[in-house]
């Protein structure tokens, strides 16, 4: 048996390794949880995608404050990478071992309610009605058949950033940003600096930062599929929008647009920072990038221009909710924590430290006058708060969750010159109606 002397060695190695982190259930976290359980505390596992050196300390401070504020619940934060967190959550729900609280996409909240992936919060709201604390549009997005499945946490909107120096150079008043679509066009013409076929400075292109759909919402305030599951794609206002956007596309030409777009989408070197792009639609939080990466930029900010005077500066946004995944072990404790997360105190702290829009109205308004912001910061945040009531959400349709995959190619057909705007909208309308009738 001498020749098998490696067998015990291998076994010993296995045993040593099995004592390592990762081979005992739950690792070190579980030991900690056990220690706390002895004190009679409930441990909550809280999943977020906020792991950056900026966001992580902020959410962990909020958690720490909550943990210190009472002695029954101990919240433990786990960072799961952005883009994978909800896939992982779904797997965990299916396996019957979900976290206790998770930050999730607001637009699909009703869909998760319908699919029973999140806990119904109505019984808590009956005792403790906090629905009035949040922007109505956000609150409504969390409802499925009148019941709430998540509490709005943070949100965003879209506003127009513009370069004041470029305005001055082009003979425009830097304090008078464009208010209508016509003005936007007129200003862009003046701001363009052309060098042969190429542009040294681009005045504005509506589809950097946002897409066709946002301008369509801006035009008629109606989502592609409304709350009664009626398809509202082929409408006169949306047709105007598509024609208008196509005009921009023809103005700059596909080659110019594609090369600029590639740059914008790289999330690196942004031409707005260098003054090569004079106006850009972005979220208010974009300000933090200007602050950090282009501190000398002389910029202003304005509401999204309206289609024509009086039409309304409707903008578009999204956001996140805090929710209890279906099957979580301690929903009552989870609810206590969610209530704290969405309270004015925690929301204001998040808003100010992150320069992020929050769902709690009172917190947003008091953040706008925070002493922690400088003049530029205040300017952007105040405008963001002003834009919030004008901001539409586009909740995922319960009858055709993926309809945008049918609609977007039709828009592309217009920009590629393959279809007229009339034909494209007609076809998109028909395709989505067909998809819905299949259900």
């Amino acid at each position, binding site marked *: 048996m001498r*020749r098998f002397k490696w067998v015990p060695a291998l076994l010993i190695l296995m045993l040593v*390794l099995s004592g390592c982190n990762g081979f005992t*259930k*739950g690792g070190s976290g579980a030991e900690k949880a056990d220690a706390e359980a002895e004190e009679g505390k409930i441990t909550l596992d809280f999943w977020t995608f906020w*792991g950056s050196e900026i966001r*992580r300390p902020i959410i962990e401070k909020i958690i720490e404050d909550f943990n210190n504020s009472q002695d029954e619940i101990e919240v433990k934060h786990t*960072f799961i990478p952005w883009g994978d967190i909800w896939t992982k959550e779904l797997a965990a729900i299916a396996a019957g071992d979900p976290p206790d609280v998770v930050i999730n996409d607001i637009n699909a909240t009703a869909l998760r309610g319908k699919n029973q992936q999140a806990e119904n919060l109505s019984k808590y709201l009956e005792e403790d009605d906090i629905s009035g604390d949040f922007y109505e549009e956000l609150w409504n997005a969390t409802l499925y058949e009148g019941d709430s499945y998540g509490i709005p946490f943070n949100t965003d909107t879209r506003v127009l950033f513009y370069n004041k120096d470029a305005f001055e150079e082009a003979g425009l008043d830097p304090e008078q940003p464009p208010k209508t679509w016509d003005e936007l066009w007129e200003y862009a013409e003046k701001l363009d600096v052309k060098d042969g076929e190429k542009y040294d400075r681009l005045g504005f292109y509506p589809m950097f930062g946002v897409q066709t759909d946002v301008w369509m919402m801006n035009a008629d305030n109606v989502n592609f599929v409304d709350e009664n599951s009626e398809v509202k794609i082929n409408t006169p206002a949306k047709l105007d929008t598509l024609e208008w956007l196509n005009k921009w596309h023809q103005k700059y030409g596909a080659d110019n647009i594609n090369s600029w777009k590639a740059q914008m989408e790289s999330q690196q070197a942004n031409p707005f920072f260098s003054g090569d792009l004079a106006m850009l639609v972005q979220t208010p939080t974009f300000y933090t990038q200007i602050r950090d*990466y282009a501190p000398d930029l002389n910029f202003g900010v304005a509401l999204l221009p309206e289609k024509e005077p009086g039409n309304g500066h409707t903008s578009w946004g999204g956001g996140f909710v805090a929710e209890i995944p279906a099957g979580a072990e301690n929903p009552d404790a989870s609810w206590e924590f969610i209530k704290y997360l969405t309270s004015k105190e925690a929301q204001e702290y998040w808003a100010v430290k992150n320069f992020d829009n929050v769902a709690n109205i009172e917190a947003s308004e008091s953040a706008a006058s925070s002493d922690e912001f400088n003049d530029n910061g205040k300017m952007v945040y105040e405008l963001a708060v002003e834009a919030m009531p004008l901001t539409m959400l586009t909740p995922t349709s319960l009858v055709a969750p993926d309809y945008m995959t049918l609609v977007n190619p039709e828009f592309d057909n217009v920009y590629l010159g393959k279809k007229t705007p009339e034909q494209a909208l007609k076809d998109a309308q028909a395709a989505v109606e067909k998809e819905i009738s299949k259900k």
Partner: protein
Amino acid sequence: MVKQAAGRQKVSHFETIQGRRQALNIINWVLLAAGSILMLSPLWWMLVTSVKTMQEVMTYPPTFWPESWNWSNYMKTWEAAPFDLYTVNTLTITILVVIGNVFVNSFIAYGFAKVPFKGRNVLFAIVLSTMMIPGFVTLIPQYVLFAKLQWLNTYYPLVIPAFFGSAFNIFLLRQFYMTIPDELIEAAKMEGASHFWIWWKIGLPLTKPALATVAIFSFNGAWNDFLGPLLYVNDESLYTLQLGLQVFKGQMSTQWNYLMAGSLLVLLPVIILFFFFQKYFIQGINLQSGGK
């Protein structure tokens, strides 16, 4: 006569042919160098980005030579998350996976190549057919299975499967074993050796190049695995390097300089491995394309 003339002609043109060859060589060199530069340019871009300030990363137009080389980015990257711990975790998983893959697959492959038994070919075909099933199809059933075994939030789901063979590695090693003459095995058997002994004493040493290939591929696979740890590990103290790198990527913005610095550091062992085992990497590719 003709032959002679041709011979003489060849001799008299020898110089120019060599000259032509040299010219051809130079062209080859230039083409190859251009190709290498093209292949290396993403790596260069990683390196340059990793030492830039975030402000410079955001400058338009992008700079190909950084204004200043901020090597401190690497320190900051390492400190942004517990990367020491992540390295230990990743190494633990990787080493176990490599051990499992090398020994178990070799053992199975020996059986398929050298031990005649009824239904061997059918069984081998079944093993191979598992290669045709895309990993994503089995992902959810596998997850549910591991959940039922109470293995979530441990390394078992990442390590144990390596001890149950993988079709590709079995195939690769079986093809290698097929090149070992049966007479060798027969001779050992005549001497009274068991199959286990033959595998251990003759099989393993003779298949070293193929084993190295399997080891390298398993190392790469386990080291770079993102989906596995993402799905099965919940506790941040059990995270691996690939998960750790994700802290630099946010929903709206990415800390490119840290992400690139971190990626380069994580890539380093793979590059070192490549330089040491270059020979086996190439052999592996030959084996993969069925050249063996």
